[in-house]
């Protein structure tokens, strides 16, 4: 029987076969670990699903980038003897990895200088580690951040370097540890509070808004709250309504907060470092689907200023404004539009509060048309805010109404086809652009 590489997390598309725990000819029992597989989140032992004898190991140890579904070994059933000899090359499962699993071509990172390829996850980890080395007051707390190495492996390795004092596993008590983090910031520390996902920060939003965001003002400027609340935000993959919401607009609504939502690894690193150094409370919205994506990241000290949008791709017929994973959709749409001879500029907001209105208006003044792309609900969204800016301050530059392309206005469904239908996609952006040209 074939042993295929299983999906070991909702977002896993490829894995690494770290180590075989058995060799050909070994008898294995159902439930016995046969291999160690490294996923996008953790190293997991793969267990035999049935009793049998190891007939062949088809993938060498250390093989990276194995698509889910790859046949990695063959077991012969105990009773039916050895199966026929394996045919040619190991087959890949019918379920091919989606296009997003392929490395994207490198795009120009900010500024010249040497770069190296890094995942968003590694860039975030490096940002925290560098800032923790730089400033003794910086510590990270949250669920599974220390011994488990991070529920999404973002804090991997931090415990080993910084110890339990500065890498603090919390109980599952978001309201409590968010408030405790705020108190620690009042007390002179610079906490990084990780929420396993921003969905769970709903339990803590009182402290983010009432305690962190408002205190500087309420205290007449006496008491700062330098804290970073970070975690994955927005839809992941097939985790359905309660685990798939974009909260950007909620936080971007609140005076006193800084809200950042980067797309690529260079911005993730440079902006997280800036967030940790900020004297304001920062809500730092990551995206689970982007964690494993790799990009060029400048080597050495790399800081990105808060509050500045970035043109990812210059163009002159239309501006596509987006942030976080929406940028991915916009870039793909821009590629498709280019094939039709339409030149789209892609503007990545990167910071949602303060919003870089000047960048939005400058781009609009060049292209005179705008479509806002957002992986999130349409009502009272960041897209709605960008449209308001274009209307209030860029009206004379507009040659057509601004459009928004967002997720459907429904709780995110579980069924694969419904989920695909609900999420924002490049084809919708292309259609919106063509409608206003």
């Amino acid at each position, binding site marked *: 029987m074939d042993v295929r590489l299983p999906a070991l997390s909702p977002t896993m598309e490829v894995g690494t076969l770290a180590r075989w725990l058995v060799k050909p000819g070994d008898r294995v029992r159902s439930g016995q670990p046969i291999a160690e597989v490294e996923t996008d989140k953790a190293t997991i032992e793969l267990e035999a699903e049935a009793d049998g004898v190891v007939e062949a190991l088809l993938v060498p140890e250390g093989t990276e980038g194995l698509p889910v579904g790859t046949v990695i070994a063959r077991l012969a059933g105990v009773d039916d003897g050895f199966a026929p000899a394996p045919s040619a090359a190991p087959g890949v499962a019918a379920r091919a990895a989606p296009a997003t699993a392929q490395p994207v071509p490198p795009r120009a990172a900010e500024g010249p200088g040497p770069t190296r390829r890094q995942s968003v996850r590694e860039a975030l980890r490096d940002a925290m580690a560098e800032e923790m080395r730089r400033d003794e007051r910086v510590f990270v707390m949250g669920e599974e951040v220390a011994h488990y190495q991070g529920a999404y492996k973002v804090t991997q390795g931090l415990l080993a370097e910084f110890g339990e004092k500065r890498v603090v596993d919390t109980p599952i008590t978001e309201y409590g540890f968010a408030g405790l983090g705020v108190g620690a910031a009042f007390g002179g520390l610079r906490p990084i509070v990780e929420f396993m996902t921003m969905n769970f920060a709903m339990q803590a939003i009182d*402290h983010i808004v009432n305690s962190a965001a408002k205190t500087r003002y309420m*205290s007449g*400027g006496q008491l700062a709250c330098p804290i970073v609340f970070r975690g994955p935000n927005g839809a992941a993959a097939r985790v359905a309504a309660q685990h798939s919401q974009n909260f950007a607009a909620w936080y971007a609504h609140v005076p006193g907060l800084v809200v950042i939502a980067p797309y690529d690894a260079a911005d993730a690193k440079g902006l997280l470092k800036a967030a940790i150094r900020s004297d*304001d409370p920062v809500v730092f919205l990551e995206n689970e689907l982007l964690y494993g994506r790799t990009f060029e990241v400048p080597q050495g000290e790399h800081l990105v200023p808060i509050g500045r949008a970035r043109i990812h791709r210059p163009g002159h017929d239309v501006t596509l404004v987006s942030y976080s994973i929406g940028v991915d959709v916009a870039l793909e749409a821009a590629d498709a539009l280019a094939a039709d001879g339409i030149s789209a500029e892609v503007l990545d907001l990167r910071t949602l509060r303060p919003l870089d209105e000047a960048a939005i208006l400058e781009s609009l003044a060049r292209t005179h048309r705008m479509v806002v792309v957002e992986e999130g609900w349409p009502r009272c969204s960041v897209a709605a805010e960008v449209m308001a800016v274009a209307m209030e301050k860029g009206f004379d530059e507009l040659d057509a109404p601004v459009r928004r392309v967002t997720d459907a206005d429904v709780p995110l469904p579980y069924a694969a086809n419904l989920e695909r239908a609900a999420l924002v996609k490049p084809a919708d952006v292309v259609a919106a652009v063509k409608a206003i040209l």
Partner: protein
Amino acid sequence: MARTGSAGRVRQAATPAEPGRLDAVPEPERYVPTAQEYRAFYRLMLLIRRFEEKAGQLYGMGFIGGFCHLYIGQEAVVTGLQAALRPGLDSVVTGYRDHGHLLACGVPAHAVMAELTGRAAGVAKGKGGSMHMFSVPHRFYGGHGIVGAQVPIGAGLAFAHKYREDGGLALVYFGDGAANQGQVYETFNMAELWKLPVVFVIENNQYAMGTSVNRASAEDQLYRRGESFRIEGLQVDGMDVLAVRGAATVATDWVRSGRGPILLEMKTYRYRGHSMSDPAKYRSREEVSAVREHQDPIDRAARELVELGFATEDELKAIDREVRAEVAAAADFAEQAPEPDLAELFTDVTASGTPWT
């Protein structure tokens, strides 16, 4: 049946004799003050009382707006506890009934009163108001308007003391109403787990707004609320400043010795309504006047000062005159001080001072 049995087990498990448990908190003794200390306690309690009476008057005259929660009746709690702190080191945080706490931390009466009237000279530049006052130089971290929010914040202040190894502790005040908030128990769990240097003080004034403790709390002996987190609790007569001061010694010694948090339930009483707009129909006039006549912390201190020979009646009257003059001056100041400049609307929103939109 099962319910009784399980409740029985819970009680048993909480006894100090349980193996592996830290030694029990020593029984607090009533504090033995010097004449100077007792007179200072008396003066501070009186200052808080007269200040709050004046705040009530100014509210009635329209100088103070919004919500205004008076501390009258509870003065012994903050007076006895603050006296055990090391000023400039230990941190203090409370809820919205905070005027007395600011005064006890040493914030000048005129700065507190000017905050109540929304003036630029207020302790928070007039931007916080009654419920949201802060004084970082006094290590007073609010003044929080959301019931129970100060509890994890206080544990965070304690976390910072432990992290910095500065030997400080955090004193966290909350009411019997806040004691039912879920975040309090999330905090208890972390505070004991991480042995944070924090004294939790429940100011049990018997009424959460209009709902009495017994109508809102399955366990109305609030000092026991830390049991399932292994947090020792003490119940204290919060109407006796020396009892409070004695318990404060036990609690701060416990916490400073690195044994983690402790919980104090201060049995106290507020004479006035929950806020200025509270008609207080949920209790009888007789109940209030009985406490005032028989348990008033200031009257008790006055009697004892004379009995102990620490002060004469005339000296107490002189203190009263002095306090009244201080409060009157604070009120005059707060009425006459200018409102904040309109440009202040857009300051202090962020570190850069920019009013980001």
